[in-house]
C-alpha cells in the first residue's frame, strides 16, 4: 500500500466531492449527489487487508468530515463501517459488481445514519433527512457500475486490489 498516493487520491476525491462540479450530476432540487468517498471506502474495505482497511476507513471518514461542517461524526462512522466490512468480506467475498453496489448502498445508509446521530450529540440542531441519506447511497451504488474500472485502475496504482491466493499478509 503506497500511502502517499493514497493520501493524494483521498484529497483529490474530497476536493471533487465538495466542488461545484458535482452539481452537474446532482438530481432534483434537493441536490442529491453521489458520494465518491463512500465508494472509495467500500472499495478499500473489500480489497485491502484488514490492517490497512482500518487506516483507510478512518482516513476517508476524516476527509468526509473536513469537507463538511463537523469533525468527528464521519471519522467514527466510516471507521466502524469500514472495519466491519473487512470482517464481513472474510465470510462473503463480494466479488460481483452487483454485490459491491448493494454493499455501497447498505454501508452508506448505516454510515450516514450513524454520523447524523453522532453529530446531534454535538450540535442538536443538526438535520439529516433519511430520504436524502438513502438517495445518496443508492446513487453512489449505481455510480459504482460506471466508475468501477477507473477506481480499480487507481487502486492498482496505489497498490491494492490484487488478490494473491496463498500469500497471506502477516496477521496479528
Amino acid at each position: 500500500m503506497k500511502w502517499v498516493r493514497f493520501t493524494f487520491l483521498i484529497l483529490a476525491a474530497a476536493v471533487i466531492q465538495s466542488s461545484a462540479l458535482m452539481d452537474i450530476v446532482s438530481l432534483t432540487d434537493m441536490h442529491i449527489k453521489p458520494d465518491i468517498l463512500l465508494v472509495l471506502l467500500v472499495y478499500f474495505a473489500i480489497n485491502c487487508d484488514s490492517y490497512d482497511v482500518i487506516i483507510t476507513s478512518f482516513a476517508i471518514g476524516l476527509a468526509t468530515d473536513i469537507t463538511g461542517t463537523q469533525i468527528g461524526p464521519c471519522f467514527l462512522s466510516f471507521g466502524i463501517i469500514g472495519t466491519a466490512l473487512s470482517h464481513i468480506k472474510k465470510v462473503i467475498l463480494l466479488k460481483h459488481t452487483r454485490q459491491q453496489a448493494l454493499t455501497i448502498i447498505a454501508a452508506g445508509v448505516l454510515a450516514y445514519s450513524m454520523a447524523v446521530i453522532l453529530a446531534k450529540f454535538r450540535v442538536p440542531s443538526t438535520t439529516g433527512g433519511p430520504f436524502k441519506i438513502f438517495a445518496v447511497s443508492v446513487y453512489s451504488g449505481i455510480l459504482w457500475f460506471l466508475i468501477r474500472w477507473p477506481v480499480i485502475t487507481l487502486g492498482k496504482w496505489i497498490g491494492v486490489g490484487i488478490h494473491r491466493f496463498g500469500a497471506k499478509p502477516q496477521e496479528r
Partner: protein
Amino acid sequence: MARKQFKPSKLTLFISLFLFGCILLLLPQNVTSRVNFAFIDIFGYFLNMGSSATHNRQPQSSSPDFVTRHDYNRLWVAFSNLQNEFFEQKRQMETLGKVRLTEPDPSTGLVLAKVVSRKDRQFIINRGSTDGLKAGQYVLGDNAVIGVIEQVSTDISSVQLITSSACKLPIKISAPDINTYFNGTMHGNDKNGAMVLNIPQKYKIKAGFNVYAAEKSGFLRSMRIIGRISKCTAGEKNPVVWDITVEPAYDFNNITDVAVIVLNQTG
C-alpha cells in the same frame, strides 16, 4: 541484529483511532471548524470550478420598455423594503403623535463580502471575526435576507441559507388588505424554499403576501424582505392551521456578493 519495526495490533490500532475520533467529537466546534475553513481556504479555487454563479450573467435587456428578471427582482425587493418602512413609520407616527422619529439608516453596519464557496444550503464568505462578524447575524443578498451567519473564523464565515431546515427565523407576514402583520417562525424545507407552520386559519393569508424577517434586538433593527408566499394551503396534519410555502426573493445560484448586518452594541 535487525531493528523490529513497531506495528500495533489491529485491535490496538482500531481502539486508538476510535478514541481519537471520540476526542475529535468532544472538541469545541469553534476549534474544529478551523480545519473546515482551512480546507476551503487552501482549495477554494478548485472548489469553485464549475460554479454557476460566475456563468449565470443574464444579458442586458435590449428594449427600454423591459428589464431582466434579476433586475425586476431587485426593484421589487427595494420597493417592498421601502413600502414596509413607510408603513412602519406611518404606524409609529399615528401611535406617538407629534414625536419626531429618526429612520434607521439601512446603510450603516453593513459588511460587504463575496461568496467564495457554495455547498448545500450554505455559503462560505470571505469575511470573519476581524470584520466584526459573529454567529446569528443576518445576511443580505441584493437587499433581501438570504440567511444567517452560522460559524465564524478570523477571515471566513459560513452562512446558513434560509432554505436549510436548520435555519429558523422569526418572520412577519404582511397583509396589505388590513394593513397589519402576522407573526410566525420560518424554517427551510431543504429544497428551494421555506415553510411557515402553525399559522391559524383565522388569519386571512393568501399566496403573494410578502414575508419579512422580524426585528431582532442586536441583529436586525427593522424588518427586511425575505420573499413571498408561493403556496398557502390547509395543514396536512392539522387542518385548522395554514401550511405556508415561502419562495425566496432571489435564486441563490445567482448571488455572488452579500452584505452582513453588523450592529454595534449601542445600536
